């Protein structure tokens, strides 16, 4: 064997997978089409956002890298939804895309036990029905005990700009040809998905004075639980709007869009539509908001967030110029759509190991998701579980009740997806328990047990918990406005910051500890209520369906559900009940037979 684990692809999933594998002590090879494109932010140069920010902090709590990468390379930070309650707040940061990518590569290069190699994988080697290595375009072969596949948009990728199309995974980067066919020949179910990215325009050509300025927060909350504080220069973003003229240009040229001309067959995301989609679908809206965001500190390229399109370049230029502040904008890169192969996630186990080919783990956009954060967390889990498998240890499967990562993977492998899957807060039934600031409390011990989260990380968690406890104790013994201070915090109009300077000893606690304790006290009742719901949920989850359960021997299950059960092979009755189209009666029959 050349390696223990081979990771294919150097995007956000690949980075986490190869670091998890090598940090756990396995000899690892990362093989990628371009060593200059590691950790590229191919679309919006931003990390985090609602629910996504929670995922970044969960990845970090388990011992992943994404949080530290963005902490060191951000050029603007904002805590979103500060007015809407703790469970829906999330951090988001603009990154300097060059620094981010460079730091990612440096981190991989410095990691012991990890080798990097540039080539394109065209096939997975197999032996006795198990993955055992890879074959490359240049005819090289590498053997390994497990393989992690993270191809992003590259597997048979094809980009579209108006009438132009080209076999590429990103503008200017060749697609990975051959792997899709090789996998299909091995019995994998693949499909096509589509996503897009807007044009980049030159900063010096913009009339910034005509746009609204949006600055970052003065207080930066680090993504990583290992980062003490962040003191970085922040850059502003700018806001402008489409108008009736913009919409007319788009409607007049809509027939030239490959999306509407039928050239693109892949399904695009409803939640992140191209501008032509927005104009067609919301004819009553007279304007759409566009964010103009810097791509980095060392470049003039500005990202037009909200304007993704696959119309011809001259049409793009026209509608960009119709907008306020962008009248003279110089387009540096055009918007384009990209269509690529994904592998049906219903063919995955909860560990992200393929049910088609043992020892092959699949992560990221290959599984039909969208977004850097969604990719990173799957890469991390695939990496961890490849290691668990080699250690002959049970896989780490996070529950819907303990992490957004759990919600994401459970949704993917149970329900599949018909459009690029993006995480939303409302996908999580127990969002009150999944706040970003509690990710370490939920997950660090699990990361530590897998050998990934470090001793130091665990100590930090324990320190934080002991400080929180000490602060609660202090509040119990102090008073504020003639009331017990602990009880006073429960009142909606009182914040813990109101008490600083008035309650003795409070200022000795770090602001993060104060914030955490405040939330804990304030929302205790609601969180307890949610925990009751969690208990209900766990009960059905705990009824295990054996791996070799013979669905054919059960007469009562409907034919349709039987096929779904056989394909998905849910590990528990709870999971079986979430499969779309499965009926109550089927679950009842299943229960009867499991208890027999």
């Amino acid at each position, binding site marked *: 064997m050349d390696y223990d684990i081979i990771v294919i692809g150097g995007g956000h999933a690949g980075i986490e997978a190869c670091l998890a594998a090598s940090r756990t002590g396995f000899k690892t090879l990362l093989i990628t089409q371009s060593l200059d494109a590691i950790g590229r932010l191919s679309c919006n140069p931003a990390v985090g956002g609602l629910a996504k920010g929670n995922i970044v902090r969960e990845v970090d709590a388990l011992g992943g890298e994404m949080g530290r990468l963005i902490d060191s390379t951000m050029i603007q930070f904002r805590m*979103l939804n500060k007015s809407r309650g703790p469970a829906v707040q999330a951090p988001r940061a603009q990154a300097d895309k060059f620094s981010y990518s460079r730091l990612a590569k440096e981190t991989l290069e410095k990691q012991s036990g990890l080798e990097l190699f540039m080539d394109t994988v065209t096939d997975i080697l197999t032996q006795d029905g198990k993955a055992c290595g890879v074959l490359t375009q240049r005819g090289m072969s590498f053997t390994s005990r497990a393989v992690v596949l993270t191809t992003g948009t590259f597997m048979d990728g094809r980009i579209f700009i108006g009438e132009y199309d080209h076999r590429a995974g990103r503008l200017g980067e060749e697609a990975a040809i051959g792997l899709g066919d090789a996998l299909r020949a091995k019995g994998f179910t693949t499909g096509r998905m589509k996503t897009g990215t807007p044009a980049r325009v030159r900063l010096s050509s913009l009339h910034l004075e005509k746009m609204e300025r949006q600055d970052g927060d003065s207080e930066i909350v680090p993504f990583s639980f290992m980062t003490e504080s962040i003191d970085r220069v922040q850059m502003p973003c700018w806001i402008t709007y489409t108008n009736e003229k913009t919409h007319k240009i788009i409607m007049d040229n809509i027939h030239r869009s490959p999306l509407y001309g039928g050239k693109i067959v892949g399904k695009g995301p409803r939640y992140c539509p191209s501008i032509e989609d927005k104009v067609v679908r919301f004819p009553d809206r007279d304007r759409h*908001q566009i964010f103009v965001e810097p791509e980095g500190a060392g470049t003039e390229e500005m990202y037009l967030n909200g304007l993704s399109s696959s119309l011809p370049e001259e049409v793009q230029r026209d509608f960009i110029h119709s907008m306020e502040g962008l009248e003279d904008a110089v387009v540096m890169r055009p918007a384009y759509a990209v269509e690529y192969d994904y592998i049906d996630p219903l063919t995955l186990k909860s560990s992200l190991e393929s049910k088609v080919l043992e020892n092959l783990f699949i992560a990221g956009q290959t599984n039909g998701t969208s977004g850097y954060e969604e990719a990173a967390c799957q890469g991390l889990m695939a990496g961890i579980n490849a290691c668990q498998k080699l250690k002959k240890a049970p896989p780490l499967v996070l529950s819907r009740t303990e992490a957004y990562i759990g919600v994401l993977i459970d949704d993917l492998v149970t329900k599949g997806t018909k459009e690029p899957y993006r995480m*939303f*807060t409302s996908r999580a039934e127990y*969002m*009150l328990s999944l706040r970003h600031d509690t990710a370490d409390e939920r997950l660090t011990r699990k990361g530590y047990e897998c050998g990934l989260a470090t001793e130091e990380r665990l100590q930090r968690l324990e320190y934080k918990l002991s400080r929180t406890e000490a602060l609660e104790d202090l509040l119990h013994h102090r008073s504020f406005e003639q009331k017990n201070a602990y009880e006073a915090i429960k009142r909606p109009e009182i914040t813990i910051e109101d008490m600083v300077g008035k309650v003795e000893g409070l200022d000795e606690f770090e602001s993060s500890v104060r914030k955490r304790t405040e939330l804990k006290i304030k929302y205790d009742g609601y969180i307890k209520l949610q925990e009751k719901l969690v208990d209900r949920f766990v009960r059905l989850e705990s009824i295990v369906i054996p791996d070799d359960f013979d669905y054919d021997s059960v007469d*009562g299950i409907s034919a349709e559900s039987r096929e779904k059960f056989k394909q998905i092979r849910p590990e528990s009755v709870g999971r079986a009940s979430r499969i779309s189209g499965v009926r109550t009666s089927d*679950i009842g*029959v299943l229960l009867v037979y499991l*208890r027999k």
Partner: protein
Amino acid sequence: MKNFDADDIIFAPATAWAMGAIAVIRVSGKGCIDAISPDFKTVRKDHSLSTRKTATATYGNLAGLDDCIITIYRGRQSYTGEESLEISCHGGLQTVKEILDYLLSKGFRKAEGGEFTLRAFLHGRMDLTRAEAVNELIKSRGETAKAMALDRLNGSLYRRIEDIRALVLSVMGKLEVQLDYSEDEIGEDLSFPEEDIKSAIESIKRLSSTFSAGKLYSQGASVVICGRTNAGKSSLFNLFLKQERAIVSPIKGTTRDFLEAQCTVNSIPIRLYDTAGFRDATEEIEKEGIRRSEALAENADILIYMTDASEPVEDREYTEKDNCIKVLNKADIASLESFKAPFDSYLRLSVATGEGFNRLCDILTQKLESTITLPSSGDPVIENQRQKDNLDRASGALELALKHNQEGLPVDIIAPDVQEALLALGEITGEVTTEDILDNIFSNFCVGK
């Protein structure tokens, strides 16, 4: 899954809730034998429940309430497969009620529908035949589960609930968009949908209030005839039943316990009770009869207070009640002019000739209908407790959402309230959600089975 905890003690009557010679109450859950044992006085000293073997019956007196036989099961042999006991007591409704109250006072919990079967199931107590029977049931439900649920509802009720659901869904949408997109991603006005929630609550409450109407015509009402001894109560009872069912006799105290019968008055099913007359009884059995009459009168939907025109008396603790109809019997004997207040407000009746009886029936109907909100014609009516419970659950959750909003709580706390309302409404129309899967399957079993 509501309340299906498998680790507390539950109880329910296993026999029908009606008068019978005996009744059986089933109790299940770890620790139930030791909990009951101190309150169960056995004749033989060595027959303490705690020390008895499994599957043995013991005679004794339970908490001074009734002499009964308790059969204990220490595990596998019981219906549920848990430690459990079966109390066989005397079948009077009052006795059963007292024992149920006693069990509640012990900290036990009333079983949900199907919960005993569920426990049997969870403990692997289902043998093959039963498993197949359950399977059959599930299958028959399954093929048409949704269609049946819809059939059960008449079309207009289904549409009404769907309308409300659509409104609550739009509320949820307005909240969820705030969960999923940050402040600066959405340009639209995001004020709290207070008016929509209020309007949904109003619709739900209006629908829920039709339950009393539905219940009145489907399940009927209880009417208790009470009054002094020898006022002619049993004769009136018989007049209602149009048959000589009660032993009619002019001797005071003839009716020593209450009698119950079913009849129909203007299409309303009536459970009619004839009770022992109020008087200063000396005999123990009669005292008990009077005590039971008082308890019945307390819980009646309508009270018919009867007194004799030849010797009128008024028991004001009854006649001042809103649900009381005051009747002066033997109006044929006494002169009509001779009555002054308070008896001038009494309905004159002669049970002997039947004079005034139709008038009594009309007043009875009016009184029953006045206690309910009659739906305007064409409006849907809900017919069962489950529908009402779910509607009340939905309006309660939405009221909580309003309250949380007024308290200034953020949207992430309020959204689950609205979600709860949606779940409750979904359960009425038979939509299956993850949590209620087992509920749906097992709640069709009779409680205590």
